[in-house]
């Protein structure tokens, strides 16, 4: 059984404002980590949104979807088509992407939610792989296959032409009423959506609807025996999280107007599961934390090469340096997946509640030390799932 902790409104307000400050100040406090460049911060915000949405399904209802990348892909393709047909304004693209991803999620959810547990996971995985293969082959006229869908100068872009901004000399960049959505403005645009998404997630977690979802996770059979039909609730959660994924997919295209089929591959679906579990499934802030860590390792660790390692370990004597560099070399560069795998194993074995649980434990330890071992109730029991 999960213990439901009554959170005060005041506590949530503080938490949310802290979160907002952290997100908006990313260009400053990420500098020492070497991550304060627009592209990576955009990815933090976008994948954070993706994971937050996924968490509404997985964290609250316990339904493990292995096919969320499909919605990310649908959102991306919709957004690029909106750029091509309507114009480079991101707002209609985002609106359409959310709607279409939601509709797509409804269809897949309607079928998949007839099963639970592993069968549900396999069904969603199958649907996502199907979408991926369709995008790759049969649907090439819509998706442009492996090459990816791009915006071309010859596209209609009706709204742009109406506004007299149809002919562009340079590259086509999305712009919000004249503000170009690349670099830092692009990041802030994504950050605003992330904050909106986070706010909604807060509201859902604290609502009766959220409580119902948690009840599904703790014992769906009992819910059914008491005469409550749980499926509409699960389906709603599925559609909401699909819409989050669609929004994330659209934002990926807003910051870089290109959609490729590999966004729908099962590895992308797996990634969001990893993010959520790494940070802490069912917690509010965990998925964002997990998304940040995974995107950080992908972009920073994978870029380490021997030269960088030699610079880092340059202070060591020659013989030892060589050995240290060759061992460390296994975990960076092309071996960054190994680092991630190890980290994931450590988390699952020692901190099943994710990094957030780690944070709680440290907090509890500090509190005990402060009060002389007063607050033993902080150690939380694990959910049965």
């Amino acid at each position, binding site marked *: 059984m999960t213990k439901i902790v009554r959170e005060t*409104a005041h506590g949530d307000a503080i938490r949310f404002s802290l979160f907002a400050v952290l997100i908006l100040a990313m260009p*400053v406090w990420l500098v020492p980590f070497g991550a304060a460049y627009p592209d990576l911060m955009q990815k933090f915000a976008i994948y954070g949104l993706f994971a937050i949405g996924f968490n509404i399904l997985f964290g609250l209802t316990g339904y493990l979807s292995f096919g969320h990348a499909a919605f990310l892909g649908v959102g991306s393709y919709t957004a690029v088509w909106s750029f091509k047909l309507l114009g480079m304004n991101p707002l209609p693209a985002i609106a359409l992407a959310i709607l279409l991803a939601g509709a797509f999620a409804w269809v897949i959810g309607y079928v998949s939610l007839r099963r639970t547990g592993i069968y549900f996971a396999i069904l969603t995985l199958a649907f996502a792989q199907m979408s991926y293969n369709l995008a790759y082959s049969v649907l090439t006229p819509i998706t442009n296959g492996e090459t*990816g869908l791009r915006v071309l100068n010859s596209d209609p872009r009706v709204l742009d032409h109406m506004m007299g901004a149809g002919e562009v000399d340079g*590259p086509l960049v999305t712009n919000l009423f004249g503000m170009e959505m690349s670099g830092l403005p692009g990041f*802030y645009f994504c950050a605003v959506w992330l904050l909106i998404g986070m706010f909604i997630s807060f509201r859902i977690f604290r609502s009766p609807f959220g409580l119902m979802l948690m009840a599904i996770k703790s014992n769906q059979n009992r819910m059914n025996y008491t005469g409550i039909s749980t499926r509409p609730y699960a389906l709603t959660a599925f559609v909401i999280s699909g819409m989050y994924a669609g929004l994330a997919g659209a934002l990926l295209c807003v910051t870089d107007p290109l959609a490729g089929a590999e966004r729908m591959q099962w590895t992308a679906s797996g990634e969001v599961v990893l993010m959520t579990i790494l940070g802490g499934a069912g917690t509010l802030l965990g998925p964002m934390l997990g998304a940040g860590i995974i995107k950080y390792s992908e*972009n920073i660790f994978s870029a380490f090469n021997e030269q960088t390692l030699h610079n880092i370990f340059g202070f060591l004597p020659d013989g030892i340096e060589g050995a240290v560099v060759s061992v460390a070399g296994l975990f960076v*560069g092309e071996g960054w997946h190994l680092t991630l795998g190890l980290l994931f194993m450590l988390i699952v074995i020692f901190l099943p509640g994710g990094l957030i649980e780690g944070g709680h434990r440290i907090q509890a330890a500090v509190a005990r030390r402060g009060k002389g071992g007063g607050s033993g109730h902080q150690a939380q029991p694990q959910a049965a799932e």
Partner: protein
Amino acid sequence: MVDFLNPSRRGVLKGGAAVGAGLAMPTIFSSKAWAADYLNKPTGDTVTFGFNVPQTGPYADEGADELRAYQLAVKHLNGEGDGGMLNTMNPTVLTGNGVLGKKVAFVTGDTQTKSDAARASAKRMIEKDGALMITGGSSSGVAIAVQSLCQEAGVIFMAGLTHSNDTTGKDKRRNGFRHFFNAYMSGAALAPVLKDEYGNDRKAYHLTADYTWGWTQEESIKNSTEALGWETVNAVRTPLGAGDFSQYITPVLNSDADVLILNHYGKDMVNSLTQAVQFGLRDKQVNGKDFAVVVPLYSRLMAQGAGENVKGILGTTNWHWSLQDEGSKAFVKSFGEEYGFPPSQAAHTCYVQAILYADACERAGTFAPCGVVEALEGFEFDGMGNGPTLYRAADHQCFKKVLVVKGNENPTSQFDILEVVQEVPAEQVTYDPSIFGGELGECNNGA
């Protein structure tokens, strides 16, 4: 319940301060960017190249070899090692003293053979590491995606292994350059050899990897074989990375085709060729002729994967380590001394691209992309392993000899898998740039 709709006075103050601080942030970063006249202008004593290669995924072997070649090129540019092709390139202004007095530094990234990952990795190099030039890649889809990114950002893109006509055809960009040959050239070089070998009354069946490279190669090979008088029976698209091709090969057996053309690359080619041989295609007789298999784009790494099955099979490559000109010998020697085995064609084209870029900067006297573009357009050089070569201004494509190769019947070592049948001169593979459409556009200096 949380009450966000009726915020406290304290909350409003806090939130306001946060938003204000956040909004003030961009100015810190933008103030510096406007100082330079082009993006990432090097201010220290080094200049940074970005090597964006597949380190994981189906083309990881090629990527690893490309990275080796790049590291060798950086060494040679900085005056370490034996200098490699710097000694044979003609004309050149490079002296092994870095580029424009700055030492060459590099950053690496993993494209994962995915457009998304490749673009993210290239963006990191440009935005964070200050790379002035991005190079690498082992897939045309990725090359085209990264090339357009570099055009938008305002840095130079020197394509690695990409064979699609589109890279310098309909998707060409002013800031992008390709040294590698393309599908059209493969067709033009291969056709006369096919005619000599198999005559001009053949029926061809194509299996094609379903993406930009496969499509353009199928089209080019079809055009040049049909010009010989061959008939195209069927052309079937196969998904990338299919693994099992038996469902595509069985219909070949039942058709009356007598030549199978495999427009596959990497692991796909290894699998489809191996299965075609297992199905007994090569021992078959159709229409009174021996059944033949053709692999238009060959690479040594691929041939190694397919082992025995490549014997006697015809194809084309950009370069092969057994060439005996001065440039190739110098490159094979320094690569061999460094790593203990001969370089692949991917390694060769990447090495040459890095050197050509450095040479163009030196001649232009600036790293500004527009200056480099001007220096590379119409540049003629020799001594880089392919004979006299022209970087054509109209589409940024190199024109040089193309090698027609055949799987070696009696290999003497594990690297001696291909034998060169013919070195097709550049004139025979040159085409009119307008046939593929596309616009180069204006060069972009970034900032």
